[in-house]
C-alpha cells in the first residue's frame, strides 16, 4: 500500500496512466464530491432516490458550468460502523472536496468527528437531528427544520381547521420526539391543548390500544408524527375503531405510498409539504417536468431535497472555488436556487437553512390536493 502511494506521489508515468484508465471521465475541470448513503439494506430505497435526483441535477447544471461536478457514491447501509470507514476513505482522498450524507442521524453523526478533524464539509441533507450541525463548524444541512415545520403544522390544525384539543401519536425516535416537543410548545403558545402524546416503536403494527388512550383523552383532532408507512397503518386503525376526528399529519407522510397503503381510510387526511408537484411555482414545475421526462414518475420530497443539494454543490464550486477550504468559506455566503426553499441561504450560526415554504394539502378521492380552506373533512 505504501509503495503504491509513493509511486503516485512521485508521479511516475505508469501510475498516472493507470489512474487515467481507472477514471477516464475525471477531467481536469471536474471536481469530486463523496456521497455516503444507503444503497442496500433496509433504507436502500432512499439512496436510490438520491441517485436519481443527483443524476438529473448534474445533467442540467454541468454542461454550462466551468467546473463540472462528479460524485462517488459509497454504500453505507446507513450503518455507523460503515460510515466511519467511508469517512476515512473520503477525507484521505484529496480529490474529494465535500461530503454529502449520510441518511440517518446515527450514521451521519458517528462520522462527524472524522470530517470535522479533517476539515472536510459534511453536508447532511436529510439530518434534521438538532445536534447534527452542533458536531462542528464543518457540519451543514439544508434538511427541513422541525423548529419551522411544527409551528406551521400547529397553525394548520388550530387556525385553518379550528381544532382546539389535539391528541398526538409520534414515532419514538430522535426525530419523532424532537418534532413532538416542538409541536406541543407551538400548540400551547396558540392557546390550544395537547390532550395526550403517545410514542410508538418502529416496527409496531397494532395501534388499537394506543388509540383507545387517545380517544379517552377526548381530542377533536389527531396529529400523526410518523413516516408514511406507519401513518397509513395508524390512520386505517383510527377509522376501523370508529373514531371520526380530523387527522393532521406531518410532511413526511407526503408520498404516493400513503394512499397505496392507506386506501380509502386516508381520504380527508390533512398534511403539509415543502414540495408538492402540483404547485404552480416555476422552479417546481421545471423540476417536476424534467424529472417526469427522465424517470416517468412523480418526484417526491427526497428527490427534491437531493436535487437541491446537487444544484447547491455546483453553485458552490463555480462561485467560490474547488478546494475544501473554498467550500467551507462559500457556505455562509452562498445563495442557491431551490425547489424547496425558493432560495437556499444558510444561517451561519446554526449552519441550517430557514424559510421553507409549506403547502397545505388534503387527501381527496385518493389523491393529494391543495387545501382550499373551508370545513375540515
Amino acid at each position, binding site marked *: 500500500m505504501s509503495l503504491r502511494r509513493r509511486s503516485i506521489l512521485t508521479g511516475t508515468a505508469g501510475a498516472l496512466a493507470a489512474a487515467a484508465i481507472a477514471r477516464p471521465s475525471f477531467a481536469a475541470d471536474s471536481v469530486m464530491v463523496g456521497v455516503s448513503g444507503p444503497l442496500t439494506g433496509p433504507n436502500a430505497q432512499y439512496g436510490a432516490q438520491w441517485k436519481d435526483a443527483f443524476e438529473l441535477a448534474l445533467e442540467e447544471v454541468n454542461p454550462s458550468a466551468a467546473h463540472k461536478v462528479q460524485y462517488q457514491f459509497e454504500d453505507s447501509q446507513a450503518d*455507523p460502523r460503515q460510515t466511519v470507514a467511508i469517512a476515512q476513505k473520503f*477525507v484521505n482522498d484529496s480529490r474529494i472536496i465535500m461530503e454529502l450524507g449520510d441518511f440517518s442521524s446515527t450514521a451521519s453523526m458517528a462520522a462527524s468527528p472524522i470530517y470535522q478533524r479533517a476539515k472536510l464539509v459534511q453536508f447532511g441533507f436529510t439530518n434534521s437531528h438538532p445536534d447534527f450541525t452542533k458536531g462542528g463548524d464543518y457540519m451543514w444541512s439544508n434538511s427541513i427544520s422541525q423548529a419551522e415545520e411544527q409551528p406551521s403544522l400547529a397553525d394548520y390544525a388550530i387556525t385553518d381547521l379550528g381544532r382546539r384539543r389535539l391528541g398526538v401519536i409520534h414515532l*419514538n425516535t430522535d426525530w419523532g420526539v424532537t418534532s413532538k416537543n416542538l409541536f406541543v410548545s407551538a400548540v400551547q403558545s396558540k392557546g390550544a391543548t395537547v390532550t395526550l402524546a403517545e410514542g410508538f*416503536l418502529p416496527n409496531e403494527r397494532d395501534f388499537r390500544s*394506543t388509540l383507545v388512550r387517545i380517544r379517552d383523552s377526548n381530542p377533536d383532532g389527531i396529529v400523526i408524527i410518523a413516516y408514511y*408507512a406507519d401513518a397509513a397503518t395508524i390512520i386505517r386503525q383510527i377509522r376501523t375503531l*370508529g373514531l371520526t376526528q380530523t387527522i393532521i399529519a406531518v410532511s413526511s407522510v407526503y408520498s404516493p405510498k400513503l394512499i397505496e397503503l392507506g386506501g380509502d381510510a386516508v381520504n380527508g387526511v390533512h398534511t403539509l409539504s415543502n414540495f408538492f408537484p402540483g404547485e404552480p411555482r416555476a422552479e417546481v414545475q421545471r423540476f417536476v417536468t424534467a424529472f417526469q421526462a427522465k424517470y416517468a414518475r412523480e418526484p417526491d420530497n427526497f428527490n427534491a431535497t437531493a436535487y437541491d443539494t446537487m444544484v447547491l454543490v455546483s453553485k458552490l464550486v463555480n462561485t467560490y472555488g474547488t478546494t475544501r477550504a473554498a467550500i467551507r468559506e462559500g457556505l455562509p455566503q452562498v445563495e442557491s436556487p431551490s425547489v424547496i426553499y425558493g432560495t437556499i441561504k444558510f444561517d451561519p450560526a446554526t449552519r441550517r437553512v430557514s424559510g421553507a415554504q409549506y403547502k397545505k394539502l388534503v387527501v381527496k378521492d385518493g389523491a393529494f390536493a391543495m387545501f382550499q380552506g373551508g370545513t375540515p373533512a
Partner: protein
Amino acid sequence: MNMPGLGAWFDYTVNGIVIGNIYAMLAVGLALIYGVANLVNFAHGSVYVVGAYVGWAAITYLGTPLPVTILCVVVVCGLVGVGIERLGLRPLHGSSRIAPLLATIGIALVLDQVVQLIFSPDPRAVPMQVPEWRIPIGGGTIGPLDLLIGGIGLASAAVLYGFLRFTKLGWAVRATAQDSDAAQQMGVDINKVNMAVFAIASALSGISGLLVGMYYNQINPAMSFEATLKGIVALIIGGLGNVPGAIGGSLILGLTESYGIALFGTSYRNLFAFVLLIAMLLWRPNGLFSGRSSLPPEPMTGTFIARSRPFRIPPWAVAGLIVAAALLPLLNNPYVLQIGVNSLLYGMLALSLTLVAGTVGQISLGHAALLAIGGYTSGLLAMDAGWPVAVTIPIAGIVTAGLGTLLVFPAFRLTGHYVSIATLGIGEIVSLVILNWSGLTHGAIGLGGIPPLEVFGYDLGSVEGTYWLCLVILVLLALLQLRLLSSHLGRSWRAIRDDSVAARSYGVSGNRYKALAFGFGGFGAGISGAITAHSYSYINHETFNATLSVLALTMVILGGLGNVMGAVLGATLLIALPEAFRGLAEYRILIYGLVLLLLIRFRPQGLMGTV
C-alpha cells in the same frame, strides 16, 4: 396515571384479544415444531414474511382469489419448511441441541435477505380479499379478518391437538418428541415425521403472514424479527411444545401489552412483553399451563462445543502478529486503519462472548446490550458528570461487568435454549429501558456530543491514536483471558460447561463461576462499547442492536468457541472481508447467514478449533 373507565377496560381487553389472536397463529406453529423437534425455530418469522410476499405476488401478478392465494402460500411455505428441516435440523441430528437453533438463525438471515433482494425493502399493500363489514364491539369494531384469523388459530390448534392425541401418526410424532432414538427403534420414520411437522407449521406461518399483511394492508421484509420474537414470548408463556398452551400464552401476551399501554403508555408495550418473558423463564419455565414447575430434563449436557484440538499458534508467532498489528499505522492508510479499529473493537466483544458462550457454554443472544451499557455509562459520565474520558472508560468496564452480571444472574439456573432466549430478552429490555428512561439516558434523542478520546491530555481521537489504544487494550484483555483459561478458574469453567452436575458434585458452584465469567466478559465488552461511544460522538438506543449480537456470535463460532485467538481472527475476518468486497455489499447479511449455516453444518469447531 389516569385510571381508564370500565368501558375503556372492555375495549383494552378486546384489543388485547385481537392482537393475541395474531400472535397465536405464530405461536401454534412454533409450539408444534418445538413439541416434535425440541427446537425453537428462529426462522419462523421469516417463513411468515415469505408467506406474505408469496400471497402478495399471487394476488398482484396472477389475480388469484383467496382460496387459490392460500393454496399458493401453503405450497411454497410448506416447501420452505421442508427445506428448513433438511438443512437446519436433519444433518445436525446427534450434535448438541443448540446447533439447530443457531442454524435456524442463519436460515432466518438468508430468507429475510432473499425476500428483500427480490421484493425490495419498500413496504407494499396487500389487496384485501375478505369482505369489509365491521361489527361494533364496545367502543370499537372488529371485522371478518379478526374472526378468520382467530378461527384459523383455534381450528389449527384443535386439529393439531386431536391429531397428536388420537391418531397413530400423532403418537409417532409425540414418541419422536420424547425420545427420537427409541421411536426410531419402534419403526417410526422420524425424518418423515419431522418433515411433515415442519411443512405443516411453516404453511401455518405463511398463512398468518398473508392474513396479517391483509389485516394491516402492509408488508415489508423487516417484519420477520418482531414476529419471531413475539411468537417465542407467547410460546414460553404457554409452555414450550404445548399447542393449546400457545394460544393461551398468545392471548395473555396480547392482554399484557394492551393493559400495559392502558396503564403506562405505548412506549412501554414491548418492555412489558419482555419482562413477562423473563419472569416466566424464572418462575414457570414450563409455561402457565403445565403442572410441573421444574425444567424438563435436558438430554444434553454442555453446549454447542464440537470436540476438537485447537490449532496452536507458537508464542513467537503471536508476538510477531502483535508487532505486525502495531506497525499497521506505518502504512499511512487511514481507511485501512479505521477498519483495523472496527476489528479491534469487535475483537473485544468477541473475546467477551467466546468466554461466556464457549468456555462456560452460555450461548448469549443479547451480547450487544453489554456494549450499550458500556457506551452509555462512559458517555453519560463524561458528558453529564464531566469526568475525564481516561477515567470513564475503565469505570464503564467495571459498571458493565457488574450490571451485566446482575442482569443475567437470575438466568444462571437455566440451560441450553432457555439461556439463549433469556439473554435475547434481556438484550431487548436493556435497549427499551435506555429508550424509556429519558431522565437518565436522554431517551430517544440519544447521546450527542460525547467528548472525544483523550487520555491524560493526549488526544487519541485521531484514527492512529484510537487504533493504538484499542490494540493495547485488546492485547491486554486477550493475554489476561489466556492466563485465566490455563488456570484453575479456566478448568472450572470448562467443567461446568461439560457437565454441570459432575462439577457441582466436585464442589464447583456453578453460579459463582458463571458470574466470574460474565463479570470478566462484561468488562471487555463495556470497554469496547465505551470506546465506540467516544469515537462516534453520538449513540442512541439502536446503535447497539440485536443484529450485532448475532454478528458477534457468528464471529465467535467462526473463530472456534472458547478460542481467544479465534475470536480475534473471527472478528477481523467478518469486519475486514465485507469492506474488501464493497461491491457485494448488497449480499453482506446474506453472506453472514450462509457462513453461520455452513460453519454449524460442516465446521462446528470453527477455524481455530474449540478450547
